[in-house]
């Protein structure tokens, strides 16, 4: 592929982004949300790496473009209702967390470099998505570390959530329903 129009193929995929969405993404509020969401992905990967053997940690990194695309998509999902209704309270914390988890899981911003094989690869982005989403939700609610054991107690739903994220790729509405159980 060469010539001036070599990106034409990729440019066509941008057709579905409306002018209104682009305007929303250019606001300072969107920028704050995106940077904050990307930071959650970084910390999520940091947490994941604590469970990975030391010699394998250098292979993982956050792809910034994918991370930002995921954060943008989450922002639009969380705030698009403001275009339809005047919600003074803003979106619920559950939706914040669910949108981030759904889009991190879908766009896979955590990538590996080089010739690297490991059984945990399929699990990585689902884990980071769940950690980022739940952390964002609980952090916005003002929860602290000591609350967590009480919230999930002997709950087995987290295991099935990881399974669903890995193999079913649920969207943010479906995750919102499940996250609301962890209040």
């Amino acid at each position, binding site marked *: 592929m060469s010539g001036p129009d070599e990106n034409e193929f990729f440019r066509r995929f941008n057709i579905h982004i409306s002018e209104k969405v682009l305007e929303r993404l250019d606001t300072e509020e969107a920028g*704050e949300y995106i940077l904050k969401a990307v930071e959650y992905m970084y910390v999520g990967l940091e947490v994941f790496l604590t469970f990975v053997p030391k010699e394998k940690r250098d292979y993982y990194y956050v792809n910034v473009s994918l991370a930002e695309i995921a954060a943008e998509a989450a922002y639009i999902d969380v705030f698009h209702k403001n275009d339809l209704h005047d919600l003074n309270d803003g979106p619920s914390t559950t939706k914040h967390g669910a949108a981030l988890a759904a889009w991190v899981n879908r766009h896979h911003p955590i990538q590996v470099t080089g010739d690297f094989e490991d059984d945990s690869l399929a699990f990585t982005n689902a884990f980071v998505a769940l950690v980022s989403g739940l952390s964002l939700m609980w952090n916005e609610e003002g929860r602290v570390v000591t609350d967590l*054991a009480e919230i999930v107690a002997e709950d087995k739903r987290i*295991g099935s959530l990881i399974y669903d994220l890995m193999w079913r790729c649920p969207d943010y509405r479906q995750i919102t329903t499940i996250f609301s159980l962890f209040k």
Partner: protein
Amino acid sequence: MSEIITRRRQVTEADLSFMPASQRAFAAKRLSRPSLAAAQGSINSGKLKLKPVNRDLVHAVGKLIHERA
């Protein structure tokens, strides 16, 4: 927060040097988005709407999920 921004800059500069010219233009356009620049300004001045990331909480959540999964 400053750490993440620094790391973000490092990663993207490294990425750009390896990219083909056409993609580099696209990536540069993304990075120069006014929303991100403005947000970095407001983050530096400390007026944020979202609460700061609680690293302890994220680590605790990760540990919890690791135990349950």
